[in-house]
């Protein structure tokens, strides 16, 4: 403020100190005015850096997903790491015949049956101490479920139902041979699979279903969406560099990181996750790696990672256009991963059935079941909806589990579901199926 008034003051001084005739005064006013305008111009330019909302700042992308503030990392996604670890214990425990239904459900909800917070079902003490849970974040995204608590409750319950059914239907038949209408074990090469009366492995339904209902839904439909990224004062705070209370990051930075955490939360080196992509968990990370390994889709791992990195850098640069462009890329790519794996397993299952390899087929189809279920959590960029509605997915699931389920499935059904999925994407059944 003060510098602007200085030239006016000087002007005034010159007037006071130099009582000139009017002519000379006019010349003086003109020359001083000119000087004044020049000075104001210079000062206006120099004060620009405090007000660049209209300028697109250049986004500087680091080599790895490393972001710091004052020499300290501003990246954080502990809650996501915790839930991936909980998920791993849960799916492993689901095929441990010594575990009780109560413990399995506690692993899912991290609560005791009466809603108490003193559940300690995990073998990892840190998980038992955590207040996080898988269940609370299943079908819980702002974009898809904030005004659809009916579907959210139904979906959360699906997982609980599968978990309980594993104990009540499959565990008692541990030493029975599976058959149509009979739960039990079935050989898949040298592996033994435990299936329900329809040939479905509940542990695979939970495993692959969580990839959609937890990781994909939270990343695509919650943390990458503007409802969450720009919630409350997030944008203003990010613009001003106002950090979350006691943290090294802005809220917006953190939300973006939480999406990142659902993919790379247990990576060996989370800043450089593609060095070990596919090997770092049993959930979304694993299947990004698998799809990357299919030559028809090679490059997808980098596309996802680069978009995350660029989007995070855009947040730092306060460039929200670039940020949202990256969110759109991530949505498309991860939705593709889910859809590709759904088609892959349905086709592999179809081939195994044709070869008479029932156990191998049912294992493939169980994984396919989980990925098909996950289709309702994908995200289209043009409509704000998933690629498939819950009703459409329920329809696919019905076809897969009709009558004696997998025991009754034929190639035509598996092909028609595969085609229906591939039709909404830019890949073919052949490309995804092998």
């Amino acid at each position, binding site marked *: 403020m003060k510098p602007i008034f200085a030239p006016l003051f000087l002007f005034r001084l010159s007037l006071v100190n130099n009582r000139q005739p009017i002519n000379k005064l006019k010349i003086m006013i003109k020359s001083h005015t000119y000087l004044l305008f020049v000075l104001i111009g210079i000062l206006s330019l120099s004060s620009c850096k405090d007000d660049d909302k209209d300028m697109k700042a250049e986004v500087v992308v680091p080599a790895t997903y490393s972001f710091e503030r004052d020499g300290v990392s501003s990246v954080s996604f502990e809650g996501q790491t915790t839930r991936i670890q909980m998920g791993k214990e849960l799916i492993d425990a689901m095929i441990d015949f010594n575990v009780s239904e109560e413990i399995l459900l506690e692993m899912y909800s991290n609560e005791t049956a009466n809603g108490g917070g003193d559940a300690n079902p995990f073998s990892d003490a840190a998980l038992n101490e955590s207040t996080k849970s898988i269940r609370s974040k299943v079908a819980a995204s702002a974009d898809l479920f904030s005004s659809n608590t009916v579907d959210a409750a139904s979906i959360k319950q699906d997982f609980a139902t599968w978990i309980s059914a594993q104990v009540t239907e499959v565990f008692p038949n*541990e*030493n029975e*041979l599976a058959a149509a209408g009979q739960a039990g*074990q*079935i*050989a*898949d*090469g*040298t*592996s*033994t*699979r435990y299936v329900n009366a329809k040939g479905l492995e509940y542990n*695979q339904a939970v495993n692959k279903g969580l990839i959609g209902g937890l990781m994909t839904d939270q990343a695509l439909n919650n943390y990458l969406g503007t409802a969450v990224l720009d919630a409350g004062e997030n944008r203003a705070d990010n613009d001003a560099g106002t950090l979350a209370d006691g943290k090294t990051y802005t809220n917006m930075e953190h939300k973006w990181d939480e999406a990142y955490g659902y993919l790379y939360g247990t990576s060996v080196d989370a800043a450089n996750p593609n060095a070990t992509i596919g090997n770092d968990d049993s959930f979304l990370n694993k299947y990004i790696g*698998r799809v990357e390994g299919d030559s028809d889709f090679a490059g997808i791992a980098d596309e996802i990672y680069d978009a995350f990195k660029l989007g995070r850098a855009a947040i730092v640069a306060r460039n929200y256009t670039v940020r949202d462009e990256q969110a759109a890329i991530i949505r498309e790519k991860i939705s593709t991963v889910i859809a590709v794996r759904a088609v892959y397993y349905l086709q*592999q299952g179809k*081939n195994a059935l*044709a*070869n*008479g390899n029932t*156990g191998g087929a049912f*294992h493939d189809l169980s*994984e396919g079941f989980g990925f098909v279920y996950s289709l309702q959590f994908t995200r289209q960029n043009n409509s704000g909806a998933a690629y498939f509605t819950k009703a459409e997915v329920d329809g696919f699931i019905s076809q897969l589990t009709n009558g004696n389920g997998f025991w009754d499935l034929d190639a035509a059904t598996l092909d028609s579901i595969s085609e229906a999925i591939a039709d909404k994407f830019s890949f073919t059944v*052949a490309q995804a199926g*092998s």
Partner: protein
Amino acid sequence: MKKQIFLFFLLTAFACSCGDDEGPSEQVDNFDRQAMLTNWADNIIVPAFSAFAEKTTALKDAGNTFATSPSNANYEDLVTKWETAYLGFQEVSMFEIGKAEELRMTNNLNIYPTNVAELTNNVMNGGVNLELPSQIDRQGFPALDYLLFGIADNQTAILEFYQNDGNANQFLDYLNILTDRIDNLAQAVLSDWENGYRDSFINNSGNSATASVDKLTNDFIFYYEKHLRAGKIGIPAGVFSGDALSDKVEGFYKKNLSKALFNRSLDAVENFFNGAFYNNTSTEGESFKEYLEYLKVTKNEVSLATVINDEFQTARTTAQELSDNFADQVEIDNVKMLATYDQLQINVVNIKVDMLQAFNINIDYIDADGD
């Protein structure tokens, strides 16, 4: 000259007219596949199963005898019959088709290492259903390996156990169950071949993933890759894991049988490749070698069949450097195991890629990705 070049080009094009590996498997040449199936069935597979079934019956009888009277003499006889049958198994394991496929023959007869804890549970609890998939690592030749050589430190202690231990009868009962079951499986497979399957095998001479040639070729390659290359050499040598795993060798408890089992298996693979008659290996009928020569398939300007046979020989020579006891070999000088693995691996490419492409057959199994 031009005519020969043209002919060569035509045949090469024919041989390589394989198409992409995602297209349907189709025979694109005029080789008599049914003649090959006939040679396989009549001169190799059925004689091999017939010989094997005789050995398993002898094993079963010796098992019964020992279980009734666990004397030193009966023990030694049982050991001999077990070895003979185990070596004989190496000659049939690759024919996992028809009844053998239905009964999951190889997985029920030769999953190693045996699961000692669960085996002991089976013994103590009794009444287990060995047909369950979950039971494959508690039966078969490897389980007998443990019962005969692993249950105590030396022959004297072993005999002392079976004669005087409080639980001896339960162990002997289980041993008897195992030898009975091995014979039952062998007889079931042989009987199926001799009572109808031989004809349906030969008549299924079409061109599809479920045709006999396609299926048996896949079985052959799967056996070579997974059982011979990986199971006997690669896994113990630590090729697929961070560390070498000396306790994962075949014949771990017998200690000095691993190499003999390996050699018999390699011989069986090579003989089948060349169509050598089971009962007279110097006579060769139609098989992969003749098929490749018919198609004039070459690799680096050498006949592919010759390349493959030469490589079998190199692998055999390299394996000669190994101790009879692969567990010791792994511990003392694993490099020799790795060298053997490398030679076996070379033929995986020749067989799984070059040979299959020439025949226009698709692989019908996927390497499990740990799901």
